[in-house]
């Protein structure tokens, strides 16, 4: 009985131990922004984000960076237009910084404060919920950042003189690996 309890305790503590690793590296990622226009909707996808997390003294600091150019909406003209309105040539990277206590990293849902740098502006999104699941040694984080164009002083691009909606939610799907 005691042996079973010990094994159960050991298995339950695995995710917590995993987060206690000193460093995390972003293994795979899919970031998808969604745009709504009166005539159609489209998604821009990037798989080229880089990320790293450093945990120490009970706190983890994460940085994720993705090139603005890497987002692909399936149309080269649209991507160049998005690159222009987001001033992607002048500010080539979107960066996201967040920190969380190591103790908070064991639950299935984590809420994060995100500092996003984009288009030469910095905006903080408070208490953004993310789902967390552990698969072996990897931790998968999924969620949506409720980004809006005015947060980064971006004029909505227009098609046929009609502007897109200000809301451009960014779906996040990341797999982190301890180093």
């Amino acid at each position, binding site marked *: 009985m005691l042996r079973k309890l010990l094994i159960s305790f050991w298995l339950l503590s695995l995710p917590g131990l995993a987060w206690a690793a000193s460093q995390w590296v972003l293994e795979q990622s899919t970031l998808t922004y969604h745009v709504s226009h009166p005539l*159609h909707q489209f998604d821009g996808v990037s798989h080229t984000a*880089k990320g790293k997390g450093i945990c120490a003294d009970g706190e983890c600091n994460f*940085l994720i960076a993705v090139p603005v150019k890497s987002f692909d909406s399936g149309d080269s*003209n649209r991507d160049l237009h998005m690159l222009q309105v987001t*001033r992607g040539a*002048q500010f080539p*990277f979107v960066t996201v910084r967040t920190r969380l206590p190591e103790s908070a990293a064991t639950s299935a849902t984590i809420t994060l404060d995100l500092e996003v740098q984009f*288009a030469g502006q910095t905006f903080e999104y408070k208490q953004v919920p993310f789902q967390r699941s552990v698969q072996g040694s990897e931790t998968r984080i999924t969620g949506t950042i409720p980004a809006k164009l005015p947060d980064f002083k971006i004029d909505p691009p227009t098609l046929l003189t009609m502007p897109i909606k200000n809301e451009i939610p960014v779906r996040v799907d990341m797999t982190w690996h301890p180093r």
Partner: protein
Amino acid sequence: MPLIVSVGLKPKRESGMVVDIAHVKRICFAGLAGACLIVMLDPSLMAQALGELTGTVTDPTGTPVAFAFVTTTNVETGRALPAATGMDGIYKFTLPSGNYRIKFESRGYETQEIPAANVAALSTVVENCVLEAVAQTQSSITADPAQKTAPSPSGKPAEPSLEDLGISPSQVKGNAREQALLDRRSHMLKMHQRLGLITIAPLGATLITSAFAGGRETSRASRDAHAALGTATEGVYLSTAYFAIRAPKLAGTKTRGPIRLHKTLAWIHGPGMILTPILGEMAFAQKSRGERVHGIASAHGPVAIVTAGAFGLAVASVSFKF
């Protein structure tokens, strides 16, 4: 009154090339209208109205502050334009003439603002800025992510930096020239888009009036109206095409998605827009002589319909998701 230019030895009407003075006027009008639109809307031709705003951002010791955010806001329109300084602390804007408020921000420094800088056409205004350092905890804007590599006062290890991700400072540094190219491209394609939409109106009207211009019982007035609308379509269409052709291309960009169909269709409606008025003029001349439209001129209608169809599809290809 048609002018007959003799081609053969005998000044026969059948063998001569008929040049309609009214048609020459129409062509001149179309060309003039197109040229006017281009002059009014082309940013390179409007460049004379632009001025330059530049300067250097330094700290109190005179050291350039790299990657500082510089935002100019047009006092009249409220339109804001951000930029960042380079490694040498220099920033540069090309702006329409007007009064601008300039804000300088950088992590670890007090935000500075110049309330008004007057940018005049064809002139360069220099506004330098000295940023005063503040305590690190007070800064709210992160200008240079690399600065976050410094250890915190508590002795905690550094936060991850872009260098930790394998991203070098040269990759982070923006390319103002490429951004300017993108801005110009977008401006020209916006004009292309607007003029393309405007083209639909005279094009539709031309198609409608064709029903009254080609039949047996048509009057000179209805043919003139059709020809005039066709000429107007031609003028706006040429301007539309000009903005697409002259829009800067970005090296290494592969054409993907619906824009490929849009560009391919231009190979149909482009030649069609050249051929249609030529055939139309031939048909016009034949009708004016009281003849039935014959020969190659009888292709005017079908060519016009294919051209209009290709043009409509080109507009739809970038407007709707199929």
